[in-house]
């Protein structure tokens, strides 16, 4: 029923079946969005990986669709983000309706001067297709399709992974195993790790359709619309003229009945009117949970993405949170594998990304509670905010149909050097994501080094910079200066994952060196 053509990726008989093959520095389980992104990031840093996936094609059906700016900035390093922008639907505006009335419009990126938009809507199968293409062209990455992990045995200096293939079972040894194997993570189950959190009972119907008429480009969210008066409806446009329609059904709906084409068509007919024509792409009924592992690093087994934490879909924090995980992990793991940083550096992956997961779960739970109030007073306050919204701008800010994914804050990370100069009035402080800005004829994010970057404002030549850092002088007095609250001499140390590790009013090589050591886990100032 899908218009997307699923190609099959080639299976090759693994050399381990002939008794060949050595221990691998990093083995990644799962070729969703996170696994291949991690493999590409590691390859860029000279670390070879094997990626194991149980099937031989990309994600089937309806998965993530909103790819956030901070994810596009990651994928841009591999030259595929412009393809995503070209293929996908760029949207920045959204509209919220109460009954038959538009009560609130929002713009996610009110300021110009960023290379990438706030979001691009692109189905996960395209994202995976573009990632696979790059991985298959990369000699340092071995993509092993139809390789299913059936056993995991941790040892002090490696992890032994049992893998089933069409030609039989083999064992692969890894110094580090990274489980990017999704919400039902077989690796997590094999290690018997509890995955605790909150279960939500509201059911939602997803109908991905190709509407053969005019397509709205912006995100729309309805509370109690005339065509579905008891609940909410979300509408999102995707590539290939596909629309995602998401109907809230309530707790007591009969999922099997609701999924029947004639019942879905009846709902769509009420929504789009008697003249509309469509074709079905995908239909499903879902519920969701918010859960998180106690620790993301278990000795030599590391968890990332949905395998480590799962949120409700409101806010596009699943896929984008997974990409932020592997962006945080890749440079640290590469330093540890190369022996340039102690393994304890990976503890900061756990603490930083657990804090991020908590923030994502908090935000998505608040959205969930707003969309599906759990008790009468909660519904009364929700409806009060909706009723006040047309006349009172403050009430519009309370309407929570999903707080869309932006980089989380990593405050108080042991890797960051706190501000010493007390006169900052703006700019991203330590633990916050860097901000893009136009610089010269291009963009600040394009000037960054693969490892650490040292932004220096108004100084063309700061002399030799510490090894592991790339000097990025910012001349002129443009937008970048405003965004970084800069004066001549202002210096920012940016981590490889584009977070600020420290900043100073004057360039001080000793302070920068100390901050760099601290950010690489080599000392704690």
């Amino acid at each position, binding site marked *: 029923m899908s218009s997307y053509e699923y190609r099959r990726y080639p299976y090759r008989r693994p050399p381990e079946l002939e008794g060949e093959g050595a221990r691998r520095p990093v083995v990644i389980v799962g070729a969703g969005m996170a696994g291949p992104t991690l493999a590409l990031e590691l390859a860029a840093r000279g670390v070879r990986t094997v990626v194991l996936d149980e099937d031989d094609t990309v994600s089937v059906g309806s998965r993530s669709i909103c790819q956030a700016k901070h994810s596009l900035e990651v994928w841009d390093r591999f030259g595929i983000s412009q393809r995503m922008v070209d293929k996908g639907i760029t949207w920045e505006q959204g509209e919220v309706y109460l009954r038959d009335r538009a009560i609130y419009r929002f713009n996610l990126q009110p300021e110009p001067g960023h290379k990438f938009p706030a979001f691009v809507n692109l189905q996960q199968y395209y994202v995976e297709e573009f990632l696979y293409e790059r991985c298959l062209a990369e000699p340092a990455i071995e993509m092993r399709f139809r390789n299913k992990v059936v056993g995991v045995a941790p040892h002090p200096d490696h992890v032994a992974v049992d893998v089933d293939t069409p030609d039989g079972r083999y064992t692969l040894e890894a110094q580090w195993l990274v489980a990017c194997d999704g919400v039902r993570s077989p690796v997590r189950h094999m290690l018997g790790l509890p995955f605790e959190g909150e279960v939500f009972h509201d059911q939602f119907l997803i109908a991905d359709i190709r509407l053969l008429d005019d397509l709205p480009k912006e995100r729309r969210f309805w509370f109690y619309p005339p065509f579905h008066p008891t609940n909410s409806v979300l509408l999102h446009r995707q590539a290939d003229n596909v629309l995602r329609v998401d109907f809230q059904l309530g707790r007591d709906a009969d999922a099997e009945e609701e999924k029947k084409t004639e019942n879905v068509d009846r709902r769509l007919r009420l929504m789009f009117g008697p003249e509309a024509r469509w074709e079905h792409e995908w239909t499903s009924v879902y519920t969701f949970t918010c859960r998180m592992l106690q620790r993301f690093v278990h000795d030599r087994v590391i968890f990332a993405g949905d395998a480590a934490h799962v949120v409700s879909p409101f806010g596009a924090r699943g896929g984008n949170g997974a990409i932020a995980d592997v962006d945080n992990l890749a440079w640290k793991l590469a330093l540890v594998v190369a022996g340039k940083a102690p393994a304890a550096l990976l503890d900061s992956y756990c603490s930083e990304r657990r804090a991020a997961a908590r923030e994502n779960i908090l*935000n998505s739970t*608040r959205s969930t*509670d707003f969309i599906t109030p759990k*008790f*009468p*007073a*909660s519904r009364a*306050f*929700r409806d009060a*905010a909706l*009723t*006040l919204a047309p*006349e*009172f*701008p*403050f009430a519009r*800010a*309370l309407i*929570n149909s999903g*707080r869309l994914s932006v980089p989380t804050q990593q405050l108080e990370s042991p890797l960051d050097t706190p501000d010493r100069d007390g006169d900052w009035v703006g700019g991203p402080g330590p633990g916050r994501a860097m901000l893009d800005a136009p610089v010269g004829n291009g963009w600040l994010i394009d000037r960054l080094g693969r490892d650490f970057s040292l932004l220096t404002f108004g100084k063309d030549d700061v002399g030799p910079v510490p090894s592991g850092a790339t000097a990025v002088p910012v001349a002129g007095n443009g937008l970048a200066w405003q965004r970084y609250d800069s004066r001549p001499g202002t210096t920012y140390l940016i981590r490889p994952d584009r977070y600020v590790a420290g900043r100073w009013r004057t360039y001080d090589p000793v302070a920068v060196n100390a901050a760099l050591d601290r950010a690489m886990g080599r000392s704690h100032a």
Partner: protein
Amino acid sequence: MTALRRTLNLARPDGVYNAIVDAHKGLSDEQCRDFDARLILLLANHIGDEAVIREALKEAAAT
């Protein structure tokens, strides 16, 4: 005389909104009413400006 503020005056609106809603969790309808009465009186006293309070009363009744 100050007019009733219409624009956002909260640094973290989601946090405040959820604190208010969560304070009602587990209360009966009657307990909610009593709770809200106390809350409104506390906030009205803090605002202090009778004109603002009267305008808010009017707006809450109108919408």
